[in-house]
């Protein structure tokens, strides 16, 4: 049990490190910034304790806020995706899947995984950028940020997943 927490903790640290050092400095077209922190929530297994998901999501968002000076914005949106992640995952659950499967290419299938990730990211970026703008006056800009950020983050997460996947495969073969 504790090993799960430790691995989650390290995943959080690594994600935070890359988010703060690398992804926070990406401003595609001047305003599209990927929130790769959301990967923390995307990873949660099917039928995980919902309170656990919520707590981890909140902590993730809070740490992001502290490092990015975005008080409350990321913690609110990360808590939101932590709430909806189980519901979205349920939509994509294959019939023959194990009860506590981990969302990945293997379990969900390539396109389904991308769609699942994209939906979660859309909600994350939607909440984040709406809280950021807090108005619909400049809705084209907000919409571009949301869509662009979601797409970019989904691509990055797919790459991370492929990397992890290939490593696991190698380990499996060895």
């Amino acid at each position, binding site marked *: 049990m504790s090993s799960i927490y430790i691995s989650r903790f390290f995943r959080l640290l690594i994600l935070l490190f890359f988010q703060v050092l690398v992804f926070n400095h990406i401003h595609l077209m001047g305003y599209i910034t990927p929130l790769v922190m959301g990967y923390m929530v995307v990873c949660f297994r099917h039928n995980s304790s*919902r309170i656990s998901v919520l707590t981890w999501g909140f902590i993730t968002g809070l740490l992001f806020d502290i490092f990015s*000076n975005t*008080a*409350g914005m990321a913690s*609110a949106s990360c*808590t939101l995706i932590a709430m909806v992640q189980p519901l979205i995952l349920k939509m994509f659950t294959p019939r023959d899947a194990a009860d506590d499967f981990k969302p990945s290419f293997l379990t969900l299938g390539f396109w389904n995984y991308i769609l699942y990730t994209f939906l979660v990211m859309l909600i994350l970026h939607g909440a984040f950028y709406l809280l950021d703008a807090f108005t619909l006056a400049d809705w084209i800009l907000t919409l571009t940020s949301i869509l662009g950020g979601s797409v970019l983050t989904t691509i990055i997460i797919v790459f991370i997943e492929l990397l992890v996947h290939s490593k696991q495969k190698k380990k499996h073969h060895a």
Partner: protein
Amino acid sequence: MRALIDLIIQKKHWFVFILLEVISLAFLFSHNGYQKSVYFTTANDVVGTTYNVISSITSYLHLKEENQALEAKNQYLRKKLLEMQQQMAQDSVKRMPALPLKYELVSAQVVNMTLHKSNNLITINKGEADGIRPEMGVICSQGVVGIVYMTSRHYSIVIPLLNTNSKVSCRLRHSEYFGSLIWERGYANIAYITSIPRHAPVKVKEIVETNGYSDVFPAGLPIGQVVRIGDSSDGMSYMLKVRLFTNFTTLREVSVITNYTSAERHMLEEIAQNPEKADSTMLEQLKEATEKPDNPIR
């Protein structure tokens, strides 16, 4: 009641969700100017230190640009230096930037000089034709050289500091106590200051400069540096040993300050010293000089 507790347990994640969202939004709205919450921003110690470490790492990434900028700056400064050197070579006044512009300098070359006699003299290759008159000050890039003694049409004789008859009034740069600089036969780079009062706070290495009391040099021209503090023969005052800035053994380029001596002042002092001789013509001359106060004696 039982049903309510069941509901709470069943839907507890909703309560947690609402609680966390309320906390988040409370952060968001109460810290809308996030200055108030130092602990939840990059201003706290842990985050600040982390960013410090990060910036110390990432600063290496910018070294190339920084180097280029520095190189460009170097180039610019080198060019400036070269320009300056050329200009200084023309002026032959190399270390006198503090000299106010109202003094005109005539540059001259040393054509003859003795160093080992007790009354050394320097001959320079500019004279009356260039506006040089007796009692004008002579300086070089390093400091004070001496005072013009005699002039001919194209040459002048200068009494350098290295002359036992030379007496230049000077002061200590910091304490501003003044005395007069004399030279004793011997070393070509050592002179002495007499009549500095014993209560003056003199320090070794203090700079000695002209004090502007005399009619010859403007105040503040460097003369030398105190190397030893001793007593005068009567024990009433200090006798300071001064290492002269001017290197007389290699002296070649000098400048004569041509328009410092004011005719008005000169005249006034003359009248004051010999009041009984001051007749109407002298007063007339003084009046004339007053009208053109910056005119040098020509």
